[in-house]
């Protein structure tokens, strides 16, 4: 059964042109991919579009998969690059602000208690520079520092540094909150 085959074997088969393997593989990781896309963009609609971009381009990208990396590492790298590319395409910086800024739809849907948490989250994420956000999107998604480093193409030390930077930002935010 294909269901029992490892990601990496499926990915190699897909890279060779096996449509069933590709299909099983994508189904297996779609939810995770979508979750990461959401964390990278902070907006449901953006996340859906980004996931769609990736799904559309993935067949062409599959050929580039080598067994050097875990499939998810590879896929998350594709996702981070696609997110970055999308942001880049999204013209100006003003648009960036609406990523983690435009929270309207999410906020309306959520109940009161979640709404507060979400407000805080939005504020927290907005306060972070893009690179820290991307790093957090991965690390908060149970990706290890070493793997995040691999995905982002940076050293593990830089990941740790970014996380500590992010914590510093959060601390500042908390300090400001406490003043109010």
């Amino acid at each position, binding site marked *: 059964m294909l269901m029992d085959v490892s990601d990496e074997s499926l990915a190699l088969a897909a890279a060779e042109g096996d449509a069933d393997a590709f299909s099983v593989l994508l189904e297996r990781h779609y939810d995770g991919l979508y979750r990461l896309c959401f964390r990278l963009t902070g907006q449901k609609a953006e996340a859906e579009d980004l996931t769609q971009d990736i799904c559309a381009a993935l067949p062409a990208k599959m050929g580039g998969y080598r067994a050097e990396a875990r499939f998810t590492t590879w896929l998350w790298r594709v996702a981070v690059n696609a997110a970055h590319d999308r942001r880049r395409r999204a013209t100006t910086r003003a648009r960036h602000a609406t990523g983690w800024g435009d929270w309207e739809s999410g906020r309306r849907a959520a109940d009161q208690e979640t709404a507060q948490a979400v407000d805080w989250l939005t504020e927290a994420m907005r306060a972070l520079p893009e690179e820290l956000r991307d790093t957090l999107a991965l690390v908060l998604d149970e990706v290890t520092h070493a793997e995040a480093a691999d995905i982002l193409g940076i050293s593990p030390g830089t990941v740790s540094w970014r996380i500590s930077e*992010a914590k510093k930002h959060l601390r500042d935010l908390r300090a400001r909150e406490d003043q109010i």
Partner: protein
Amino acid sequence: MSDDLDDLKAAMNAATPAPDAGKKAEHLALARKNFADLQESRDGVRQTSDRPEKGLFRGVAKMFSMMSRRGALTASTALVALGLVAVVPNWQKGPVTFIPVETQVEFDDVVIVEERAREDARKELAAATELAQGQEEALVLEAEPQVFAAPSADMAAPETGLLGYADGEVQALSRIVTEPGFVPESNTESFPEAEESSLKITSEEPVSTFSIDVDTASYSVVRSSLMRGWLPEYGTVRVEEMINYFPYDYPAPQLGEAPFRPTVSVSDTPWNPGTKLVHIAIQGEKPAVEDRPSLNLVFLIDTSGSMDAPDKLPLLKQSLGLMLPELSERDQVSIVTYAGSAGQVLEPTPATERATIMAALDKLDAGGSTAGQAGLQQAYAVAEGMAEEGEVTRVILATDGDFNVGIYDPAELETFIADKRDSGTYLSVMGFGRGNLDESTMQALAQNGNGQASFIDTLSEAQKVLVDQFTGALFPIANDVKIQVEFNPSQIAEYRLIGYETRMLEREDFNNDKVDAGDIGAGHSVTAIYEVTPVGSPARLSDPLRYGEVEAASTSQSDELGFLKLRYKEPGQEVSQLIETPIVEGGEVSEDMRFATAIAGFGLLLNDSVYIHEWGFVELIDLANSARGDDPFGYRVEAIRLMRLAQNLQW
């Protein structure tokens, strides 16, 4: 303090929605279809690229990014420039392209195209398609047979689907989204292409005025993006800064002439057979090193916590270490820090006392978040204390984007720096590290301080800025250099300045000596390139006027393409000098000029310029390779490597 992070994680988990089942099914189906298509095409001829698919989704992405909900809410009274109506009842017969006619549609006048009117619309459409040859943006619309033009905010209208590129001519896709209450906003700012300096029609606007620019930061930023495996964001690609990053060896001025010499030549455009490029190359004189005035340098160093990264403070220390051997015993160095540790950490010290200076540098460390008090004022005060008659005094601000220098109002900061510039102390800015970099502020500060903004991402970049081009960066030879070109409408139908978007001046600013402009340092070379369309060229984008153009004065019958005027001030002078020269066909096209052209093309490709057709990275790399020239420092080889990277990174 991992609590905060845990909170964030919990909030993130709560906020992350489950995927929409419908979307998921769609996306999976799409992926499977593309997978199948790809296999098919592999079996077929040669695997062509997956361009059309990419175009499709990128197009959709672009469109969404162009929409603004805010715009939608306020659009009911707005004017919206919309494409023409497209009605394609039978999609199976293949896509129909049409050229959006740039008409301003007033919302109140919008009429839905009804069933009976559709026939007329189709005729009109066909006519419009014939007229324009697909030079402009085209739209391909898929339609159930009920699509129409401009929806108004309160009018529910059917959804229009977007297809793909029709052919290679199509440069940008647009989509008319007709959800109720969701109207595309006519906002030039959200189109990156619109930021590119636009085409001018010579008969309407024959004069082009701008300030020269010797900043190079954009190139380093682009390089650092590409090295990380990302295509640079549009905003970071400034074509003129990329061109001027490279040293060129243009003809230098003779002794006793002006401090710089312009050379103008005209050549064919690699990316458009119907247009020509006018290169304006300016070469500054290179005073002998021993003749140079003494230097007083005050390093104003950001020691905020964020500077604590390998590519920031440590790189800065190494960079300054590289620079010291270039200085002589007549030169003095002082160090002031701000943010984190604040204050003067090194008294003015002769540059030859390297051990003392390096020891002071080594003691710097990033940390704390004590608000830096008045770091900038202190640096200038130290600088003024060091200045003596005939010396060059400069503050060099090194930061990763924290401009918390003691003056908080950006306008006040610029004024302060401009005032100090007028009293003889200049400012340069060096940016370090990515993530927090504020390039526009860097540029604005350096511009007001008669200095250069550079971005230092590697030790070799530090070597370039602080050692190889040391003299140019620190010794100005001409201030407020402005360029004005008047094109001859009898020869040139249209023209476009490549880059310099942020440096444009008003026509009347040219002769106004009060208006600040860019400065040329010793040995600097500056290049500006116009793309011009000769009268009668098939590449002309605008149609000639039916009722004749105003006959210009008799000189317009001359075969000069245009006339170049330059104004500059000798350092310390209030009154500008004028250099004039006609622009004529021909002129030697050197390797340097061809390389500058290649870099211009590189910038345009990175920006997805609407003015480049059927010319891509393959041609670009060929051109750059053929113009590599001497390249003693290896900058050009590096640029070609970046072009290859960018070629592979295109998504």
